[in-house]
């Protein structure tokens, strides 16, 4: 799978490749456009310049119909889960099957139950999304995303806000799914430990550029100060932690005068 693109503003002359059949983690500080990157792959956004190539298809130049066909081979797990709020858990997982296949009802039922079982939520099939906890709804969303056995699976921040148990389960699940179904996985996250533990290939973004890419070991041994700062979680370094502001002491001492004058 080749993947090249360039975009101004958020990304400038960004170019990266995602290897087929492996787990690629895309990491970087908040606001570097990791989610945007996934949307570009899914064809929801179009690059101003350059190209996005998925399995030989140039995504931005596909017709609407071709794009929807290509998307049937992609799965995406959104940050919020994005379950359809008016459907039950069962119907949510069945949704892609009903839309894209003409399988008989009992087969859909079996498939949905298999997918729900794989995320450990077979018992929750009759609940509505509003009755689920955040972690549960993300697992249901995962079951829905893999309902059609996609070739490319994208995860948008799957580890955010999960308790340690769910986190461990999720990490395992992602690994298992990737190996069992021979999927290509793109994982966007800033949770370093989890990413490094499951990824085959890691790519660190910052300032719209690829800082470094390679195996997890290579990343850990990287000499780049930005990468070191990010991985060790230090506030001071080349990546600014603070939003640009004038001098702190000055701001505090002269706050009254400045405030009135301003």
């Amino acid at each position: 799978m080749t993947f090249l693109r360039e975009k101004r503003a958020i990304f400038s002359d960004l170019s990266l490749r995602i290897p087929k059949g492996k787990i690629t983690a895309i990491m970087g500080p908040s606001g570097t456009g990791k989610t945007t990157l996934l949307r570009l792959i899914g064809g929801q956004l179009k690059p101003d310049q350059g190209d996005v190539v998925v399995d030989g298809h140039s995504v931005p130049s596909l017709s609407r119909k071709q794009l929807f066909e290509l998307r049937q081979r992609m799965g995406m797990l959104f940050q919020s889960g994005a379950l359809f709020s008016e459907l039950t858990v069962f119907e949510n997982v069945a949704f892609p099957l009903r839309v894209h296949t003409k399988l008989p009802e009992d087969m859909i039922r079996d498939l949905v139950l298999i997918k729900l079982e794989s995320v450990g939520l077979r018992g929750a099939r009759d609940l509505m999304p509003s009755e689920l906890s955040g972690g549960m709804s993300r697992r249901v969303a995962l079951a829905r995303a893999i309902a059609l056995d996609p070739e490319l699976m994208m995860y948008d921040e799957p580890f955010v806000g999960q308790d340690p148990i769910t986190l461990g389960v999720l990490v395992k699940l992602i690994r298992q799914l990737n190996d069992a179904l021979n999927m290509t996985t793109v994982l966007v996250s800033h949770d370093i430990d989890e990413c490094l533990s499951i990824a085959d290939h890691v790519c660190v973004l910052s300032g719209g550029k690829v800082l470094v890419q390679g195996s997890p070991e290579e990343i850990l041994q990287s000499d780049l100060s930005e990468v070191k700062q990010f991985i060790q979680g230090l506030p001071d370094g080349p990546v600014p932690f603070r939003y640009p502001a004038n001098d702190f002491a000055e701001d505090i001492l002269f706050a009254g005068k400045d405030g009135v004058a301003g």
Partner: protein
Amino acid sequence: MFGWLQQIGHRVLSIVAGLGRSAQLLLAALMGLGYVLKNFRLLIKQVYVTGVLSIAIIGVSGLFIGMVLGLQGYSILVDFGAEDALGQMVALTLLRELSPVVAALLFAGRAGSALTAEIGLMKATEQLASMEMIGVDPVKRVIAPRLYAGIIALPLLCILFSIIGVWGGMLVGVEWLGVFDGSYWGNMQASVSFTHDVMNGVIKSIVFAFVVTWIAVFQGYDLEPTSEGISRATTKTVVHGSLAVLGLDFVLTALMFGDF
């Protein structure tokens, strides 16, 4: 110095761009008719949400408006000894103006704002985006059924409003104030024409349904996916929808009844 000029230009451009986007959405949603007919249940569900759930508010308002018309009409007409014309007055006021307009205003407030908030929330929680990623066009699946349901529901609500209003007028005029019921109905039947009054009212309400639902789904689809954005969009739906109804009502009235 040219700041204000630039601001005007910016506003105009953004309004034009919004109109363009809404026209695109409308076109795409109308093209989704085939999908809606194939998935008829989606349409039924939306007719339920926009229509059936609005029956109560439409019925109660229709009753009270009819009763007020009966009361006011009687007190004016009785001075001329023409209280026999009460039925005619109530029916014509309702059929030509009040039912289409008031039903559409209530519809914008009740169903329109709910549509905007629902679609907006689906957008904010990435449901629309994930639907797109599953390979389903949300315009066909989410927008089109709601648009068509609105166009079906409001004219029906408007007709119910008229009937309940005429009955409410009779309740006050005939039962309480003692207008002879033969002249209430007789005068009404002699002066109300089916094509000229009843059908024109229905046509009005179809136009209103179209515009109000269009505004509602567009505001929902186009909003900024934040809690502020949703509240601003629901307000816009009600304000723009109501203004559009009142403005269009004048145009339609001039076209339909303006020749005498």
